[in-house]
């Protein structure tokens, strides 16, 4: 019942406003035409006073719901009560009526204004200027160069900048579309969307944000409900969000609804390339894979556990670089989807093009395994590979390399597995590999290595497993 009476307030308030104003109008009319309208004037102030009284009671009941800004409510409440008292005074006291009527007119305006501010929000009359927070958020941050872009394409210069998705994208949307009813000024349904903690707290009935699940987050689902649905937001008749804004919110929630995460995004200077960068979806690792997959602890070989090798998430690599790998038919596979390490396989990259090797420099941090088997790789090509300092497994079987290559390869600090079968290397070359600290497996079948060479090598590196391919079946 109190709920019902309370909600009559917006209806009732218009009665005293209209009736009292009409009383004032009649007083002016009486003054101008000198007709006797005192009875009608008195009656209108009586009626105005009584309806004002009812409005006050209803208004007080409505205020108890606590959905509104307390400061504004206080102001509105006392202005309203004063208005009601004053109108009773005008009815009962005939003297100073003009002074009191003037005060009443002013009070009515003030009360009405406060009331309107409560229901329609602060910017009902004067909408705020669309702010440029988004642009500021990006430009204020110092761009950080994450990738070496020079050798790829000199025309495109691009930088990787970091920005906070919540501040840069979500807040402006909420500000223009939601704050009117869900912020400090007004908390419809008890919901505020102006700070992180309030968004997480939700409305008085339920949460509005369920991380990673936009469809169950009212923050998103209410946006895409049919416009005629009671729960659709913003309510019918108000300004609606654009499709892009809705998608931004969905993506943000789906990707973990982080308020803090800063992501790398590629900022391309070149105008043509700008078009490309707009298609780059900023992603961070935990966001990408936070779906239904639980992680299984793995007990994996050395290729995976490497505290000594730190590599940035391959997602930070430029899409342009990754596309080049694809164009050149070089397969890049992550060790697994939780790992930052990549394996590169050139099995499809035929005929072999030396410049393809230069591409590998772009991923030298992430690259831990490289397969170049059965390609016409020469010693000079190995120079490039010697710079790929994180390689642990290298397959060079059936290539055209010689001892010179091994001199370059001994510079690889992480190298563990090296496949050299079917190459023209000799004992001298093998001896150079004694410099490889981490070497543990060597494949040397069909090479010019002799037994003496291996014995010599084993004296220095006894732990290295060498597969010479000398197994012969004993005939039965």
């Amino acid at each position: 019942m109190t709920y019902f009476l309370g909600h009559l307030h917006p209806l009732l308030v218009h009665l005293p406003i209209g009736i009292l104003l009409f009383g004032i109008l009649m007083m002016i009319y009486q003054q101008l035409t000198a007709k006797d309208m005192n009875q009608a004037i008195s009656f209108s102030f009586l009626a105005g006073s009584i309806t004002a009284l009812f409005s006050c009671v209803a208004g007080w009941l409505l205020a108890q719901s606590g959905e509104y800004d307390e400061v504004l409510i206080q102001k509105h409440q006392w202005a309203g009560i004063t208005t009601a008292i004053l109108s009773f005074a005008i009815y009962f006291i005939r003297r100073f009526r003009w002074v009191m009527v003037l005060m009443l007119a002013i009070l009515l305006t003030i009360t009405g204004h406060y009331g309107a501010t409560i229901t329609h929000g602060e910017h009902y009359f004067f909408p705020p200027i669309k702010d440029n927070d988004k642009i500021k958020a990006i430009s204020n941050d110092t761009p950080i160069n994450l990738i070496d872009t020079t050798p790829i394409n000199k025309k495109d210069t691009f930088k990787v900048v970091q920005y906070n998705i919540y501040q840069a994208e979500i807040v402006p949307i909420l500000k223009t579309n939601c704050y009117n009813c869900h912020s400090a000024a007004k908390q419809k349904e008890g919901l505020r969307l102006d700070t992180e903690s309030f968004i997480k707290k939700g409305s008085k009935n339920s949460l509005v944000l369920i991380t990673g699940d936009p469809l169950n987050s009212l923050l998103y689902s209410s946006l895409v409900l049919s416009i005629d649905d009671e729960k659709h937001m913003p309510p019918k008749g108000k300004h609606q969000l654009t499709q892009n804004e809705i998608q931004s919110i969905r993506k943000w929630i789906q990707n973990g609804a982080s308020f803090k995460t800063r992501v790398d995004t590629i900022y391309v200077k070149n105008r043509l390339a700008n078009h490309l960068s707009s298609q780059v979806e900023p992603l961070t690792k935990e966001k990408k894979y936070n779906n239904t997959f639980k992680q299984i602890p793995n007990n994996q070989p050395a290729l995976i556990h490497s505290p000594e090798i730190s590599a940035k998430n391959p997602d930070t690599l430029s899409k342009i670089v990754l596309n080049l790998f694809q164009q050149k038919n070089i397969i890049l596979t992550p060790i697994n989807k939780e790992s930052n390490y990549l394996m590169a396989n050139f099995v499809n990259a035929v005929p072999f093009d030396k410049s393809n090797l230069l591409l590998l420099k772009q991923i030298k941090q992430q690259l831990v395994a490289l397969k170049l088997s059965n390609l016409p790789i020469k010693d000079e090509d190995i120079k490039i590979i010697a710079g790929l300092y994180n390689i642990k497994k290298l397959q060079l079987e059936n290539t055209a390399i010689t001892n010179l290559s091994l001199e370059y390869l001994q510079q690889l600090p992480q190298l563990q597995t090296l496949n050299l079968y079917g190459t023209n290397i000799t004992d001298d070359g093998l001896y150079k590999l004694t410099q490889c600290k981490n070497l543990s497996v060597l494949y040397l079948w069909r090479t010019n290595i002799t037994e003496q060479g291996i014995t010599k090598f084993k004296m220095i590196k006894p732990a290295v497993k060498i597969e010479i391919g000398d197994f012969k079946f004993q005939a039965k």
Partner: protein
Amino acid sequence: MQPLQKDNIMSSIPHFNLLTSELADLNRKLERRDFLKRTAGGLGAMALGSLLTNNASAKSFEQQILDALPTIAPKAKRVVYLFMSGGPSQFETFDYKPTLNNMLGQQLPDSVRNGQRLTGMSANQAILPIIPSAYNFNQYGKSQTWVSELLPYTAQVIDELCVIKSMYTEQINHDPALTFFQTGHQLPGRPSIGSWLSYGLGSENKNLPAFIVLVSKNASRDQPLYARLWGNGFLPSQHQGVQFRSGKDPVLFLNNPEGYDGEDRKEMLQYLSQLNHLQNDEWGDAEINARMSQYELAFRMQTSVPDVMDISNEKEEVFELYGPESRDKGSYAANCILARKLLEKDVRFVQLYHQGWDHHGGLPQGIKYQCKQTDQPTAALIVDLKRRGMLDDTLVIWGGEFGRTVYSQGKIDKENYGRDHHPRCFTMWMAGAGVKPGMTYGQTDDFSYNIVKNPVHVHDFQATLLQIMGINHEQLIYKYQGRRFRLTDVSGKIINDILT
């Protein structure tokens, strides 16, 4: 050539508040099931349904799964599965049961059989006489594993193998047992292991299928094989296994018809692809994409297949290694060489089928012949992969669909007996990437009738195989006709003890 044009819908409706992709989706002709799925709340909800489920960035359930693969760092990148079709007897190969030698002809104790149902072939026998192996066993390698004298070459590489003596299945007849092993279900219609792997991990070599099947031509065809054993089931059809044959046409219908030039074919395929693109815009059916990728792959295979099938430039020493039959194209030995070549080209899953292991009668001679055909090439494959550094990331599997009984089927004679199907225990082995070498896992009772230690169900084997390939078997899911399917269905546990 002239590109085929289609009216741009977007240009005629300038102020429609939908993303292009959504509009394209709405304009598609849909299958009944898709239509109902998307318009769950009736026609009015169609636009909304599209908003909720088909945003350009909202990925499908399947796509999300594929994006997360491999979930675990894979130990093997490739698999070669040597399938011994028919059910090789464990008694004459790996499961050494010396106590049986004193029990020749005795009735199988009821306490061992425990009321198990037998096949119609031996259920009506008056007695179930125990028959020991006609062949001797010896211990080999550092692991001192018992191996039959029929497998002298395998015995020499025994330290590379992980022998599982405690496999068991639920099926007692060939067709359901084979289907169960390959697809995880006894009824036909589900995707086979290779198809699942092709679907989940894709193909490394873009010029060859990810799943290739080779069937020995020189085996006795006692039980049939069917293409559905390497079928894709409900997965997109580009993931079905492709059989390479030994004859003039290794892949059927791959070569151009006579008098038809390669350039003509290229142009024809380009036009066909455009037509298929139009059709795809209209229907959005995944099978259209599958068809297009198959045409493209087939075109590339016209050059890659003759290259890979040609084993003539293999060195003499290789043929010696794989044995005398290895020069005979299509034989098991030649297929082993071919398998190695395919694996070298980074084909994901190569499956060899060798029939002729179904010895209901005449087992001693039969299995001797089978072993002679397969023993040396199998061992040679291991040796060859090892010296090329490929055993590091290739998993080798050997085994059949079930085992055989301890009792003789039909007439009993020490030199001529038969064994019936036995699903309760049998032996298979794995080697290479991800599995512990020189290991024996599981144990059967003295009659090799029941498992006494560490049973491994077919689903457990499949789960372990997927694990080695970097996939948690519970996570490789495909939704079809309202149900979520897995290779291991609703069971399967990973045998961690045999993993490195």
